[in-house]
């Protein structure tokens, strides 16, 4: 970290997009090219600023790095506490990476209120990065809520015809979860105080609290519901297809690429390590829902008539894999799970970009309106094919590494789940290739499609970085997995240790009570 020791780099990373917002505010709203250019430049610089994180990140430790910690509201124990480990590092990189592509993809797609749009975009970036980097629950919650607003606006203002319905559905769904989460955060805060006499929202401290299983169950449930909606896990997923179909392209990319990961990230950062004994109890339920999500999402995706909705349902399936791997709780499965978070951001991001490009040309996303496009749009077809292959996890692409590790890890601990989940791999190929065939292959028989223009340079520039990532992550995953190795093993060790300690406490307490009772030293025995 040497040279970076004195720079609060995480703060810079989080708030630099806000500097961009300030600049944007100064630009005349009529001057759209300047607005777009500024947004693009800022998003690129932001990405460049985040690069040192991965360069100077020390993969040899599980500790939080680049830590910044200053008291914020001293009286309440709220801190401005930032830090990243191997898990959040990669998601941070994904966020700054995808934001650039989102700005690029909005170049001609967004025609109204460009200024507000770009401001929302950069605002959203700050919110997402803040949520990923915060290590204080209040700070996290502030950022968590902060990202909701620009996302709500992206859907509600720049979305499709049913945008208001979709936006409200999105907002309400997530708010329900958020409220429950807030209550759980407060409860945890007071319970920690009760145990130690200290008020704090510092998660590194809260991790050390090992609550009774009963209390863990309630708080786990509250957190889990908030995150499960966000993921979204079956059966809390129905906001997603609506949000995706109505959102503008960049909104969908960010939504799928990063926002959904807030749910899965929430599980791995908060839910499981804070309440591990409860998590253990919830493992069968969550794995079951994950597997249902994998198969159900794939099957429902298969029958969709709208390409974007198809991709949205495929997200339900892919995130089922993420959840499955996470709750199988071993090295391979958890690393696969985190890897799959990144993969999904890359592949599904690419698919949404691609759908957006064709929507911009044809103003339709219905499969039946296409057919034979590969002949007219060979470059487009190539990118679409690569994104499709990455989505169905062809070996050599990123998708394979994630799915393989998840299924391998899951197979070790819970075979039936792994076997059922693996059928998702077959279904994935079926629905993606069937869609691809109907859109790209066959006769080019629609007049409107015969005049379509192939991708321009800007669009190629948007997709090339994704293709590079697809193969890089598929062929040399060591670069990425190596960064998370220590954090994941530490995560698993902590969880196991806490669960074991809790078990010993419970059994020990019971044994002691029994002993006292039998020796007659204990007169009143509480029944529970």
């Amino acid at each position: 970290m040497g040279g970076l020791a004195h720079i609060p780099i995480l703060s810079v990373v989080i708030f630099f997009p806000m500097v961009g917002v300030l600049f944007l505010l100064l630009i005349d709203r009529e001057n759209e090219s300047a607005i777009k250019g500024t947004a693009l430049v800022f998003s690129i610089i932001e990405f460049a600023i985040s690069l040192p994180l991965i360069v100077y990140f020390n993969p040899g430790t599980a500790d939080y790095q680049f830590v910044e910690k200053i008291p914020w509201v001293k009286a309440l124990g709220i801190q401005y506490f930032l830090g990243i480990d191997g898990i959040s590092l990669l998601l941070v990189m994904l966020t700054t990476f995808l934001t650039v592509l989102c700005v690029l993809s909005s170049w001609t797609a967004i025609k109204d209120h460009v200024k507000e749009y770009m401001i929302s975009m950069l605002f959203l970036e700050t919110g997402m990065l803040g949520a990923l980097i915060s290590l204080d629950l209040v700070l996290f919650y502030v950022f968590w809520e902060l990202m909701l607003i620009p996302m709500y606006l992206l859907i509600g203002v720049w979305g499709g015809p049913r945008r208001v319905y979709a936006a409200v559905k999105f907002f309400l769904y997530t708010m329900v979860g958020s409220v429950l989460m807030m209550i759980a955060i407060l409860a945890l805060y007071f319970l920690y105080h009760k145990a130690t006499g200290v008020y704090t929202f510092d998660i590194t401290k809260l991790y050390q609290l090992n609550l009774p299983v009963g209390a863990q169950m309630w708080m786990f449930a509250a957190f889990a519901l908030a995150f499960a909606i966000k993921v979204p896990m079956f059966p809390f997923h129905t906001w997603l297809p609506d949000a995706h179909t109505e959102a503008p392209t960049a909104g969908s990319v960010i939504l799928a690429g990063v926002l959904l990961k807030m749910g899965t990230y929430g599980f791995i950062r908060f839910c499981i390590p804070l309440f591990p004994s409860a998590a253990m109890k919830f493992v069968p339920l969550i794995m079951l829902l994950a597997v249902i999500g994998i198969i159900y999402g794939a099957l429902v995706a298969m029958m969709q008539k709208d390409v974007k909705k198809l991709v949205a349902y495929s997200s339900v399936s892919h995130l089922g894999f993420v959840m499955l791997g996470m709750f199988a709780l071993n090295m391979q499965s958890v690393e696969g799970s985190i890897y799959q978070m990144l993969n999904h951001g890359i592949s599904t991001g690419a698919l949404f970009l691609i759908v957006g490009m064709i929507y911009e040309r044809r103003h339709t996303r219905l499969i039946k309106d296409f057919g034979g496009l590969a002949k007219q749009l060979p470059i487009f077809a190539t990118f679409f094919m690569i994104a499709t292959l990455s989505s169905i996890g062809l070996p050599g692409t990123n998708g394979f590494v994630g799915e393989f590790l998840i299924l391998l890890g899951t197979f070790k601990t819970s075979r039936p789940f792994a076997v059922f989940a693996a059928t998702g791999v077959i279904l994935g190929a079926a629905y993606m290739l069937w869609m691809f065939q109907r859109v790209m292959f066959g006769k080019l028989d629609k007049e409107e499609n015969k005049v379509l223009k192939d991708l321009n340079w800007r669009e190629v520039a948007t997709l090339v970085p994704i293709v590079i990532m697809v193969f890089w992550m598929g062929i040399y995953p060591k670069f990425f997995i190596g960064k998370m190795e220590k954090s994941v093993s530490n995560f698993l060790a902590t969880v196991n240790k806490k669960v074991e300690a809790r078990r010993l406490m419970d059994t020990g307490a019971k044994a002691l009570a029994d002993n006292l009772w039998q020796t007659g030293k204990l007169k009143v025995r509480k029944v529970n």
Partner: protein
Amino acid sequence: MTSYIWLIPFFPMVGFLINGLLGVKFKRSWIHIIAASAIGLSFLATLILFFELLKVEPAARHFENVIFDWIIAGKFKTQIAFMIDPLSIVMALVVTGVSFMIHIYAGGYMHGDPGFRRFFIYLNLFVFFMLILILANSFLLMFVGWEGVGLCSYLLIGFWFEKDSAATAGKKAFVVNRIGDFGFVLGLFLIVATLSQHGIWSLNFDVVFKHAELLGPTTVTAITLLLFIGATGKSAQIPLYVWLPDAMEGPTPVSALIHAATMVTAGVYMIARCNVLYSMAPVSLEVVAVVGALTAFFSATIALVQNDFKRILAYSTVSQLGYMFVGVGVGAFSAGIFHLMTHAFFKGLLFLASGSVMHAMAGELNIQKMGGLKKFMPVTFWVFMMATLAISGIPGFSGFFSKDEILWQSFHRGHLFVWILGTLAAGLTAFYMFRLTFVAFFGKPRMDEEAKHHLHESPKVMTYPMIVLAIASVVGGYVGIPPVLGGANRFEKFLEPIMGGGAHEAVAEGAKAVAHASASLEFTMMAVSVIVALIGIAVAYVFYIKNPQLPVRLAEGMRGLYTLLYNKYFVDEFYNSVFVQGTKDFATFLWQKVDVGIIDAIVNGVAGLVETCGGLIRRLQTGYVQTYAFSILVGGVAVFVYFFWESLF
């Protein structure tokens, strides 16, 4: 040189990249030269390595190149690493050699096609993945090649994607293969899950085989059966063979290369590679042999009555692959590989010849519209004849040695049922191949005058590679002449060091029986299979040369059987209505009834309820901050009290 194994797949990759990234402006001849020479160089590298390998002691013929670490997660570790040993070098020689010929041929065949460049890009990529499959040192890297060739197969079957049938066939191939791959990966998981309990976290072949005893008999049976599911997909065996006949939608060089000579044999290669595991699982071996024999017989019966030139060959391929599985299934692993090699020559050639015919007939595939082609296309006819004699198992031709070896081994190792099916299938094979030859090449031309006028022999760029393969189809068997015929079966000897599974008792018993069998018995068996083949040829001669009315009458006499065979036992229809339509119906149900009908209905219902309640609660909105503050306080207190109370217990 043994540290340059990577060169073998490297050249096709380079060809792929040059034509793929830079080739937009290239002239066609350049694209062809680049693609073909990439494979030629790869063949050369393989050849050099082959001779390097020969210089080494048989037991030491094993080299690995580790390129870099691939997936590492916790203790699990795999690398990108290549390996050569007698088995992989034989496969690599066959693949690069046959590919090279077909690449040359394709330059002529695809000449006028607007997708010329795309074709060669895919073809180079295919060879690359095929070599990865063969040279992989671990199950996982093999799987990369395994799915990679599947991708190229998908792309090349659907090469003329404007045709719906082609696009559909490509997708079908991929999805059916995925079903097989589902079994394959579960097999890999089972290996890792079991071995990791003993502290072994590897999918490297040598590591797994070395510790195979740790797997235990039940697990090893499960593993080998799961892997075999993968093989039934890739190598088109019952019940997953249905994609291969449809795959004929692809350009004919693709059918020759991918769907006859190389990719479809991957399952056989995989089992031979895993002979150590299979030898420990007699049940699995029995399954492999029986499935192989059934497939060999079953698809040969379909081939009897088809009229599409390439489909006949496709069913024939399915059938011949069945033989290979019989070979490896009875424990005669090198016999299976031997047939794999000779089949690559003669079946590749048969397809190339069919392409040459299509080239002359403007794409016509119906053999009833051909006839008398012998006169117009002498070279094509003669090479076709060589390959036909080879596949029919006529002594002196390569197929005779390899097929006979398999039948002999299956008989002698006590698989009587398998042997009977195999022998019957051999007769059927001779029949349908000669039916095809007689109908297409002999007799009176049945095409219209216009088509007849255009008949011509193919250009040299197509005929020369066919001639090379024709020579291989004849002499290719001489490397494996059995001792009883005065040979030394050098092929088997060469492969011996890696067929360690042969030492396992169940298999060794059989091998011993074979070794001690009397020469006269072996001659008798040989005679039986030759006679069966000759009967097949004789029947075809009577049916299609002597008395062409006979088959028509026969078909009418047995209408039911004929319809059943002609419609391929209606298996496709059955799969479509049960599995494909069943899945779609279920999926529609989930979407319309569960997603929209239940889940979303509840969500919207709750939203509606909230709205109604909201209307009532609106009256609480007094506009006084004090009221709000008070309610926040009450709510907050309620929450805290609840949790304090909760935490007390």
